[in-house]
């Protein structure tokens, strides 16, 4: 029986072309996505810089304009996209560098927003969230969902999430300042560290002031929660909020 080798070779090259085409197309999309991330990050950096400059200019004089300025509203959406890229595009140097930049921007945003909030008596609440992607941390996945839910409920709440294992000195500094333990997930709420999963209700109990950040009519609905802290919700480390 004659074997038509030409057909085998032709089919092989067509298949190879299809395969390489798919891989090239996929790379093209991945690069597009990474450059989109870069653009968002650039925009956030500009926003923060602008807020910083604005803050320095206005100093104690006026707070009216500050509330209207865009305080890095895109940080949340950037976080989702970075997490998605990590899971689906895979880690690359480019992505790690984006993630480091993102972490730095978060810290800057945290410091600045805190400063503005204090100076202008604005009701902002802050949570620093430490997670890990290194191990199979199911509690971290749950914590992520609970924080997303909380952020939807309290728009004035600012959640800053940090990859515990990211090799970045600023994160190491945060970890040492707040004495964040290795047991993750860990949250820093009002300067106190809590380790292990905390549900929406747990966090509302820990930080009853959260509902003060809501507009009046919504505050009533949230008032049902008793502002008591159970023993399990006691902070694992009692640290003082650093002077900024």
């Amino acid at each position, binding site marked *: *029986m004659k*074997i038509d080798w030409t057909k085998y070779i032709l*089919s092989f090259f*067509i298949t190879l072309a299809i395969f390489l085409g798919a891989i090239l197309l996929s790379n093209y999309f991945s690069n597009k996505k990474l450059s989109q991330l870069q653009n968002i990050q650039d925009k956030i950096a500009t926003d923060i810089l602008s807020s910083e400059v604005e803050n320095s200019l206005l100093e104690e004089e006026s707070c009216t304009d500050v509330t209207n300025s865009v305080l890095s509203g895109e940080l949340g959406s950037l976080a989702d996209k970075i997490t998605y890229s990590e899971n689906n595009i895979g880690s690359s140097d480019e992505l790690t560098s984006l993630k480091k930049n993102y972490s730095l921007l978060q810290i800057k945003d945290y410091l600045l927003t805190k400063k503005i909030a204090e100076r202008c008596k604005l009701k902002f609440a802050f949570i620093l969230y430490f997670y890990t992607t290194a191990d199979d941390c199911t509690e971290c996945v749950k914590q992520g969902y*609970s924080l997303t839910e909380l952020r939807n409920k309290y728009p004035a709440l600012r959640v800053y999430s940090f990859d515990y294992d990211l090799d970045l000195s600023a994160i190491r500094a945060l970890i040492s300042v707040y004495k964040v333990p290795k047991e993750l997930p860990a949250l820093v709420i009002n300067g106190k560290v809590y380790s292990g999963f905390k549900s929406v209700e747990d966090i509302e109990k820990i930080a009853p002031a959260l509902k003060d950040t809501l507009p009046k009519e919504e505050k009533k609905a949230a008032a049902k929660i008793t502002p008591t802290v159970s023993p399990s919700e006691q902070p694992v480390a009692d640290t003082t909020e650093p002077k900024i």
Partner: protein
Amino acid sequence: MVTVPNAIFYVFTFLSIFIQVFLIVTFFDKRKQIVIRKEDITLKKYPKVSIIVPCYNEEKTAYKTIRSLLNLNYPQDKLEIILVDDGSTDGTWNVLERFKNYSNIQMFRKENGGKHTAMNLGLERATAEFVGGLDADSFVHPEALKRIMTYFVDQKVMAVAPAVVVHQPKNVLQKAQKAEYDFGVFMKKMQGFLGGIYVTPGPFSIFRKSVFENLGPYKKAHNTEDQEIALRMQKHHYTIEHCPDAYVYTTSPDTIAKLYRQRVRWIYGFLKNAADYRELFFNKKYGNIGFFALPAGVISILTVIYVFTSLLYTIVTMVIDKIAQVNAVGFSSLLHIHAFDWFFINTAAINLIAVLLSLALLFSLLLGRKMVEGKMRPTMGIAYFFVLSATLAPMWLCKAVYRAIFAKQTNWALERAN
């Protein structure tokens, strides 16, 4: 990111796309040789043909099967019909007796021994130069035999397989099988061009009688005697052709349980017979059957099982994630609808390749439909076929592979009884 499961996936999908590309390349190479006749034809010579109808508990369909043979547009004195009741326990024999007055019909009744024994009894009694079988749950198009006989003008052709199609598909399962059988017509024709046919289907494959005289009668062959005889012929370099316009209508299983049993038997039989004839694999002496057709069969089985396992893993991971979400924040969180953002469309190479493989498969399915129905328009049956392939097919494939490895027999009689 290339992990081990991803690497296996790439290998399987590469080979699967190669198979589809190879078939499509063959199609474009040989498409002018595909003959689909709509009109009646006249043969110069009408050789005598014996058709054996093995019956086992087929009182419901046997009458229609025999009627379709009598309605063949072929001189009745050149057609010998041999009815063999393989120890039916229902009223099959009574149905057969209704035909006892036909001069060209012979009837035999024997103890149950399996389809191959019924076929062999028929072969012993057959007097014609050409012989074939017709399962008692199938019936033939009036022109089918004439169309098949045109292929025997070539003296090298030793057997011709027909185009088996599903008769009046009613439910979703049968419609999916209709698409699959149409695809099978395309596959079989391409295999015919490549000299790689490894099944001469029970319904209406016609052989030169010398095949059995030279190679011996049917064997039990793991309850898939129609696969074994084709492989035996291939081993002896006998040419098997495929006639895409000789339509044979078969009654397809109408329940999942029946379909499951039938498919486990087929796949199990394929694997066991392929193992019995393993010397054909990648042996230059046997050409495309060893380099393409048989390996393609094995790869398709493994790919479906692998893709299904990956899919299952993805679904389980997703469910675990959703459970974590519900545990963390309750059911209401599942109802949040996020605004569409192209960023979150998974454009990983692995997914694009899976899409391309499905498209290549879809193209072959449409070519099959074109060959049977004369039009390429997609049908719901094709959609059902994809669903069936991704959900139920892996079940019977896994079962058949398991049985083949641990050498458990499939029960043909049980399948027929149900």
